């Protein structure tokens, strides 16, 4: 085999996506659906009724054992002890420089059993890091990614779909709550979490049942206008909310304080990797920050475009950008010099050969 040949991974729903006419693209080593009927249509459907996403490419790592809490506290900036059993928390894995190795969701399934949901492109890296740092902790680590399918049902009508397929108890769990249950007779973990800014559920279950559960949800969703939605809409939805994407807006070279997610840092908790850097940044401030921008001129901001001050000086860069389907305006997350961060400050974005005017705006761009 040619060592240069790339073998792209597929989720258990690959066949169904292709049959549905989805356009498939490479993402983080996976062949994923970027759209079915159209990005804008899928995006607006999620905002107004409901959509379903196959996000089985994401990683699931279980952390259990007597020291599970202490271990996770050591590796992350947020206070894991504040997660009640049966709830979830947004958090991150930081390196010694407080750089973001990955942003993650932690689900506390049992007192000493946590499920970490991690980015698809970082699963291997995160797994190595967790194992490396586990020395001295009484923990058991299990990479469940290959056996786990993950579907996200997102939109104002999502609870109606869940009631029909998984019952009232599951449909009634609170935001950030996690519960085990059944869907179509298949055991699953349900969480009222998501990456779209809408109400929604994420369903973790045995990958071998992926097609069955997908078809069940599609069928149940027919009367509510449920559409399958791809990574294209997933990106425009999260961007309208200002949620960062690792690799674009957040990375190992920048800390949470530099990345608009400083709120996850609970410096009053005990020691953790990277804490000293964060303590210093809290008192001294940071030179660059991630914030949002809305174009007042025509044009579409994109990753890598330069951000300029009104005087034409380079002050930063666009980390993510798109034409917002809900607003009809160009929106972006930008990493710029801290003194330019604020509300309604005038900046310019170099869109190829044209300088487009924009105003800074702390996300979200859409009110939710």
């Amino acid at each position: 085999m040619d060592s240069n040949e790339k073998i792209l991974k597929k989720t258990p729903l690959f066949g169904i996506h292709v049959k549905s006419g989805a356009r498939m693209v490479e993402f983080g080593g996976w062949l994923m659906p970027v759209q079915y009927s159209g990005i804008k249509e899928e995006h607006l459907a999620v905002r107004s009724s409901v959509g379903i996403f196959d996000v089985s490419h994401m990683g699931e790592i279980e952390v259990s054992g007597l020291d599970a809490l202490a271990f996770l506290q050591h590796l992350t900036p947020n206070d894991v002890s504040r997660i009640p059993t049966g709830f979830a928390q947004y958090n991150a894995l930081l390196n010694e420089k407080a750089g973001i190795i990955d942003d993650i969701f932690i689900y506390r399934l049992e007192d000493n059993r946590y499920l970490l949901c991690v980015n698809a492109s970082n699963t291997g890296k995160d797994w190595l890091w967790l194992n490396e740092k586990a020395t001295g902790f009484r923990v058991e680590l299990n990479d469940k990614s290959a056996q786990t399918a993950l579907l996200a049902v997102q939109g104002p009508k999502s609870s109606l779909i869940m009631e029909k397929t998984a019952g009232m108890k599951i449909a009634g769990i609170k935001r950030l709550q996690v519960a085990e249950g059944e869907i179509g007779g298949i055991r699953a973990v349900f969480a009222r979490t998501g990456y779209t800014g809408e109400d929604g559920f994420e369903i973790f279950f045995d990958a071998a049942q992926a097609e069955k559960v997908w078809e069940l949800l599609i069928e149940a969703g027919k009367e509510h206008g449920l559409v399958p939605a791809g990574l294209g809409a997933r990106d425009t939805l999260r961007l309208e909310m200002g949620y960062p994407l690792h690799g674009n807006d957040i990375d190992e070279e920048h800390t949470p304080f530099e990345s608009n997610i400083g709120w996850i840092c609970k410096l009053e908790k005990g020691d953790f990797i990277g804490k000293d850097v964060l303590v210093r940044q809290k008192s001294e401030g940071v030179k660059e920050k991630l914030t949002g921008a809305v174009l007042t001129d025509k044009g579409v901001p994109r990753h890598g475009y330069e951000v300029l001050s009104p005087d034409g000086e380079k002050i930063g860069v666009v980390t993510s950008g798109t034409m917002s389907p809900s607003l009809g305006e160009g929106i972006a997350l930008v990493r710029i010099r801290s003194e330019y961060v604020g509300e309604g400050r005038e900046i310019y974005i170099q869109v190829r050969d044209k300088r487009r005017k924009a105003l800074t705006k702390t996300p979200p761009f859409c009110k939710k």
Partner: protein
Amino acid sequence: MKVPENLKYTREHEWARIRGKVATIGITDYAQDQLGDVVYVELPDVADEVAKDEQFGTIESVKTVSDLFSPLSGEVIKVNEQLEDRPELVNEDPYGDGWMIQIQISDPDEIDELMSAEEYEAYLEEEAGSMEDEEDDDIDEDDE
């Protein structure tokens, strides 16, 4: 894929409707399908000169930015301003309301170099065929 009989085509998937010395120009159904939802179109101004096979503007979808190439040389006499507020017209009606520019043709000989509908359809089959081959090369069934 729609390929109207009465138009001329280029390998870059643009079409031209020619009436006398005036050509109306846009992108084909195949092109808009490949692009996905069009979110922005950048067009020249009236009185600008465009040249055959050279870039006259750009078209953006959510995920991509593509150049627009002119099938013919000439002077821009009209620009479809509807596309500013409704770029989706390119997806909805690529040969009608999704037209982009209208030019005064400066070199009628260039018309002969364009493809007929039949030739463009054959070209599409070739393109689609070769794309499929590419896909097969990239997607190896799991060897492990």
